């Protein structure tokens, strides 16, 4: 008898597993009927709302405390709701990695939020699985709207003529510098790599960390990617991803040798491998480091710090033995906001509300709120006034944004399949940490390309 029970249990387990694996669709019905306030599930309760006076849609962001950590988004949402009392936006947020997990889980149970932030790699997968709405009809017919975007912004989620998302922000990466420390050591802001190495030498002699970096957070390698662009990253990458070229090539090798050179000359802190991005930021803000690898997202923080009058922003060193145009900046689109395909299909009214919101966010009013009131670099053109006294750092960043240094269409890491980004970062960081020689690092990338099966993925 007990044996029979054991058998039943085992069978029950198998059935349960198959149940959970297989059925994703029929469950949303159950979920929405239950009394759930769950903000991730796209409840069809909302559909009934749209017949009433107010349309509600969910907007999931990738920070936990939206008001404080993504204030520009919060501000735009509030203003939009004020101007459109018949539309309500339910904002939810979670820390980046939690948010990514939730989106993945929601995709498995067909309960994606209506509007949400997504990493590009995940967004590509979602688009392929047919879970993202194609926004092209509603966007491309509005020429004024399209022209408002900075060049290249709309291509981030463009696939075969369809547009599956709009960039949440700009990847405006570069190197911050603390002019006061340069002046103190009698140095000019470097232009070439040789200038940079000279500064490194002088800073080390004076006990100042030349460039703050925390390799514990491998993804904080932004300006390194721009440097890689100056060594022909885009000339080889298509070939690599289709199997006709290798990571271990002469151009890339010269770049990785520069990484090794930088590390050996003491450009980075000694304890880089035990600190992360936060510690590096504070190292810079505390006046211990002369430079800092990061991007425009830190602008507001820097404008609120003691160093605001001496913090500047540059695109990084040019290389004598580089490949192609050396005056490369990074003004590429970042990860996108996407709309759930389910919403577009099942609730056209709600979908139109979302479109209306997006046109507001990326339109002149939204841009004004983002740039002027929250010192965040917008994805759209902004020609308004910036109070350089109140926001000196932001003013300098906008100056750079408006210069004539060309930017690639995408940031290198966004060109890679999502799963490979970390591997790419690890190869660069590995050279800096002294774990890999330049050849080993590139060979590692070739090996991983094969092991992870990403060719022609």
């Amino acid at each position, binding site marked *: 008898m007990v044996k029979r029970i054991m058998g039943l249990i085992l069978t029950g387990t198998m059935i349960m597993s198959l149940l959970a694996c297989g059925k994703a669709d029929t469950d949303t019905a159950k979920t929405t009927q239950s009394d759930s306030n*769950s903000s991730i599930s796209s409840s069809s309760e909302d559909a009934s709302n749209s017949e009433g006076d107010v349309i509600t849609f969910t907007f999931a962001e990738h920070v936990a405390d939206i008001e404080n950590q993504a204030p520009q988004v919060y501000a735009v949402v509030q203003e939009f709701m004020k101007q459109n009392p018949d539309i309500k936006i339910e904002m939810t947020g979670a820390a980046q990695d939690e948010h990514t997990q939730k989106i993945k889980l929601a995709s498995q149970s067909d309960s994606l939020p209506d509007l949400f932030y997504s990493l590009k790699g995940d967004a590509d997968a979602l688009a392929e699985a047919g879970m993202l709405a194609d926004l092209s009809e509603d966007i491309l017919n509005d020429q004024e709207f399209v022209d408002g975007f900075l060049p290249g912004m709309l291509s981030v989620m463009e696939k075969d003529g369809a547009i599956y998302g709009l960039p949440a922000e700009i990847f405006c990466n570069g190197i911050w510098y603390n002019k006061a420390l340069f002046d103190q050591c009698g140095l000019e802001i470097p232009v070439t790599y040789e200038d940079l190495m000279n500064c490194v030498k002088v800073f080390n002699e004076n006990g100042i960390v030349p460039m703050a970096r925390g390799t514990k957070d491998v993804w904080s390698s932004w300006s390194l990617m721009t440097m890689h662009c100056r060594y022909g990253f885009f000339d080889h990458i298509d070939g690599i991803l289709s199997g006709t070229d290798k990571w271990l090539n002469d151009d890339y090798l010269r770049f990785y040798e520069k990484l090794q050179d930088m590390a050996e000359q003491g450009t980075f802190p000694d304890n880089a491998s035990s600190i992360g991005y936060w510690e590096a930021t504070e190292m810079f803000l505390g006046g211990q480091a002369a430079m800092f690898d990061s991007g425009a997202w830190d602008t507001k923080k820097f404008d609120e710090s003691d160093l605001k009058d001496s913090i500047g922003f540059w695109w990084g060193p040019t290389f004598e033995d580089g490949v192609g145009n050396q005056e490369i900046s990074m003004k590429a689109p970042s990860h996108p906001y996407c709309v759930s395909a389910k919403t577009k299909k099942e609730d056209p009214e709600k979908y139109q509300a979302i479109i209306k919101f997006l046109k507001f966010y990326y339109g002149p009013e939204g841009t004004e709120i983002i740039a002027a009131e929250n010192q965040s670099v917008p994805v759209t053109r902004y020609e308004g006034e910036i109070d350089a006294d109140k926001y000196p750092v932001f003013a300098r960043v906008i100056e750079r944004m408006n210069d004539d240094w060309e930017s690639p269409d995408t940031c290198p890491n966004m060109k890679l399949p999502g799963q490979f980004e970390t591997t790419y970062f690890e190869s660069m960081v590995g050279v800096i940490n002294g774990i890999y020689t330049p050849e080993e690092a590139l060979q590692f990338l070739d090996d991983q390309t094969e092991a992870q099966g990403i060719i022609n993925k």
Partner: protein
Amino acid sequence: MNMKANWKTILSRCVLFVITAVTAIPLLWLVVLSFKSDTDILNNPFSLPEHIDLANYERALDTLPLFKMFGNTLIVAVFALLISLVCTFMISYAITRLHFDHAKIPNGLYLLFVSGLTIPPYIVIFPTYRIIVALGLLGSRFSLILPLATTTMALGVLLMVGFLREFPSEIEEAAIIDGCNIYQMCTQVVLPIIKPVLATVIIFNVLYFWNEYPISSVLVNDTNMMTISLGASMFRGRYSMDYSGMIAATVIIIIPQLVFYVFFQKYIVEGMTAGAVKG
């Protein structure tokens, strides 16, 4: 005789002092850190703050809806604790006291439950989510209560079976001769005997529910149902961290836990065991 006793006491106090110091100093330092700013924390970690600045605590209290979170944790903890304790007790008793035709069955059950300890929670969160959705529980409190109750059963079974095995069953056999049934047996005879274990399991379970993170982060989507353990993640920005706020929040969260622990150990456990030993 007296000299020896004193010497031993002094030695034992010294050892305890050293161990407590090594354990406690990082904690006390955490409290010190809670009064400093982010930049200060990194650049001058060991210096004492110039003045006691409560800004971090204000920010922590502002960011976290503390009462709601405590309430949510409490609800989850109470239900999960009840379910877990009842199930664990019943199966531990069955494994150690009931007679099975094959000895392999209780051993097998024991191994099965103890093997629950080998699984790090991150492995199962995705499948658990799918199962919760399949059961239609997503968004209800039970989505969190049931998985958490299950994960604590492994430790509970390990402890209870261990202790029950140690206990000679004469008292229980006497009770049977006196003619009691299974229900009376469990509640009136066995339960009082295993009070030390029960108390220990309760403490560990409650504190586990308090601090559980991976499962909660995935199953709790509604801000109204956020538990205390998710509090720290409220301070994590996209690339930035509000460490000073996080530390202040943690100090606020730790204190009740320590109070609970002390209270439980001192009054309840000691009270219980005084009775048990006599019996």
